[in-house]
């Protein structure tokens, strides 16, 4: 089982308390009616599906109930960091350095 650190509870807890909520930092267009079909499709459906460090959202469902963001390596399933929703993307180079 994965152990995930909740940035709000400041505790490292079993995965069973959390739910996955898709890729992070997807911004909804301000004016959807101005979007072309392609742009709207991009926003709704197109995801990066990276191999390696992936920015994603999680929710501490059976705990504080908060959504937060995490960087997880999709190959090793290792969490590089977790941070509060609304915080800027952490710099990937600093994360992979500290992982060594």
């Amino acid at each position, binding site marked *: *089982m994965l152990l995930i650190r909740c940035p*709000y*509870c*400041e*505790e490292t*807890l*079993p995965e*069973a*308390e959390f739910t996955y909520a898709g890729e992070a930092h997807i911004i909804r267009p301000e004016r959807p009616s101005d979007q072309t079909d392609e742009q709207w499709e991009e926003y709704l459906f197109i995801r990066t599906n990276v191999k390696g460090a992936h920015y994603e959202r999680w929710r501490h*469902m*059976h*705990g*504080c*109930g*908060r959504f937060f963001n995490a960087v997880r390596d999709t190959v090793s399933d290792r969490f590089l960091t977790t941070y509060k929703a609304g915080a800027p993307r952490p710099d990937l180079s600093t994360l992979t350095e500290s992982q060594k």
Partner: protein
Amino acid sequence: MNAPICSLTPSILAESTAARVSLAAPCARFSLRARGDLGPLEGALGLTLPGRIGTRADAGMLQAMCLGPDEWVLHAPESAASGVLSACEAVYATHPHSLVEISGREVTFVIEGPRAAELLTLGCPRDIETIAVGEGRRTLFDGATVLLLRDEETLFRMDCWNSFAPHLRHLLETGCRELAAEAL
């Protein structure tokens, strides 16, 4: 308001040499959501709302536990329920918040005994020892979200929704027997 939706009645549900599980008498419960300056609200309730998730504060018969950055649960005797509601209503205009009575939604199991903490590990993926005495957490117990409050080293309270109560009761009952059988 506190109609007995749950078929269980307050009594001892399971008892063995390992632990005892009983259903607590009904009490008033409130879900409180508030942001910003909590001062007026704390003044109305007469207690300082705990800031760190999992910590608790008591004032007389009223108990508050922090569940999230802007979320608290309040426990009080049934007789004090209307007082809590009217006190918070008085500050609503100047400090908007959400106070919802959830007394009828949940029941409380009291789990005590020398192996109470071990009994909880049957359904709870979290390390029980991370919950300090006098604290509590919202967590998971065999698939159901519960509030786990640790009052003493071997005395816990578990609040769960009515609909999950029979299921959790069976698991706790089985666990009580199982742990007792192991000791022989």
